[in-house]
C-alpha cells in the first residue's frame, strides 16, 4: 500500500466530460511528498464493478471515487482530505454531502443533510478555494452521496447486489459502518465540488435498488 498516493477513480461514458473533470484535477495542489494517480473505466457494466476493478488495481492508500460530471473546484481539496483522514484513525470515508440519519424509506434526499452543494445562488459569489484545518468541526454521517467518495481503506463494493447505478453509495456507507469506520462530511464555506448532474436524475431503476438496500441493511 502506498501511503503517499491519492488515486482518482472515475467511471465514465462521455470523453468530453471526463476531459473536463481531469482538467480540474490537474489544477489541484498536491501535498508535499505525495503523488496522484488516475484510473478511468469506460462503459462499466455497473458502477460497483468498475470501482472494484479499479480499487484492486491501485495500491494508493487514499482513493477518491467520483463521477465524470464532478469538478473539484477547491484547489486545496487534497490537503484538506489529508487533514481529515489524519485527524482520527477511525475515519474511513469522506463525502461532500451526507445524511446524519437515513429514514426508513432509505431516501437520503428526504432526510436532513449536511455538506456542500452548488446552487445558482451560491454561484453568484466569486469562488475562493478554502484550506480546511479544523477537522474537529467535521460532521459524522450515516451515509454520503456518491458523486464523490474518498476512502483511506479498501472495502469491496457490493456489485453482487447493486449491479446498476443506484444505491451503491448508501450501500458502501453501510459497509464502512458495519466494519466500525466513521464516515464524515466537512463543513464547506463554498462547496468544494460542483456536481453537474443536470438536476433531474434517471430514476427508472432507483426503486428496484431501494428495495434491495432496505432488505439487505434495514430489515433486521
Amino acid at each position, binding site marked *: 500500500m502506498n501511503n503517499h498516493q491519492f488515486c482518482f477513480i472515475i467511471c465514465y461514458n462521455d470523453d468530453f466530460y471526463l476531459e473536463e473533470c481531469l482538467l480540474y484535477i490537474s489544477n489541484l495542489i498536491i501535498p508535499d511528498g505525495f503523488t496522484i494517480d488516475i484510473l478511468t473505466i469506460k462503459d462499466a457494466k455497473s458502477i460497483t464493478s468498475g470501482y472494484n476493478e479499479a480499487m484492486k488495481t491501485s495500491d494508493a492508500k487514499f482513493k477518491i471515487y467520483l463521477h465524470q460530471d464532478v469538478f473539484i473546484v477547491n484547489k486545496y481539496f487534497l490537503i484538506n482530505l489529508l487533514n481529515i483522514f489524519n485527524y482520527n484513525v477511525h475515519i474511513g470515508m469522506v463525502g461532500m454531502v451526507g445524511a446524519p440519519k437515513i429514514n426508513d424509506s432509505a431516501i437520503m434526499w428526504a432526510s*436532513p443533510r449536511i455538506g456542500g452543494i452548488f446552487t445558482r445562488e451560491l454561484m453568484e459569489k466569486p469562488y475562493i478555494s478554502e484550506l480546511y484545518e479544523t477537522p474537529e468541526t467535521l460532521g459524522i454521517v450515516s451515509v454520503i452521496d456518491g458523486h464523490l467518495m474518498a476512502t483511506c481503506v479498501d472495502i469491496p463494493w457490493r456489485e453482487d447486489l447493486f449491479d446498476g447505478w443506484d444505491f451503491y453509495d448508501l450501500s458502501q456507507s453501510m459497509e464502512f459502518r458495519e466494519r466500525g469506520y466513521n464516515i464524515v462530511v466537512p463543513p464547506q464555506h463554498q462547496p468544494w465540488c460542483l456536481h453537474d448532474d443536470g438536476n433531474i436524475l434517471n*430514476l*427508472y*431503476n432507483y426503486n428496484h435498488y431501494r428495495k434491495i438496500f432496505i432488505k439487505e441493511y434495514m430489515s433486521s
Partner: protein
Amino acid sequence: MTKINLNHFISSCESLETNKDYYLGYIKKYKSHINDSISNHSLEDFELFLNEYFDLNSKLEDQLLTSELLKINQIKYALLNERTHDFSLFWNDVYTYDELLEKYNKTTLMLRRLLFDLPDVFKKQAYDFLASISPFIINAAFDDPTNILGMEKQIYIILAKDCLIRQKYDHSSLYLELAKRV
C-alpha cells in the same frame, strides 16, 4: 438543503419502475424524430417534436422529464432567436442529437471555466469557443434549469469586451443588451 416530499417521491419512483419500458419507449421515439430534424436542420420539425414531447410529458405528470431533453429544448429557443436575428445557427456544424448535446454541454463547461480559478490557457480556450457561438445560446444556457451557472451579468460584460476585441460588434452589443436585462 431542501427536502423532498417523501410520499410523493416514492409514488413517483414506483410509477417509473412499473412503467419504465413504456416511458423509455416514448423517449426513444421522440429522440429519433428529434435526431432526424437535427440531421436535416429543420427547425420547424425540431420545434414541433419538442413541443409535442413536452405536452405529452405534462399529461404524464413529468414522468418523461430528462435533463437532456430540457437542454435540447433550451437550444430550440436559441435557434429560433438566432434565425429571427439573422445570426449563424448553433447547429450548423452538427448533424445528430448527440453532437448537438455535446456542443451545448461544451458551452456550459466553457462558461463555467470563467467562474473558477483555472490557469489562463484553459480560460483562453473557453473565450475562443464562446466567441464562435451566439449570445442567444449563452443566454439559453443561463436560463436552462438543468445548468448550474452564475454571475450572469458579469459574464455578459466580459464576453462583450472580448467580442469587441475580436471585432464581433453585433455579438458585443447583444451581450450588453442581455447584461442590461439581468
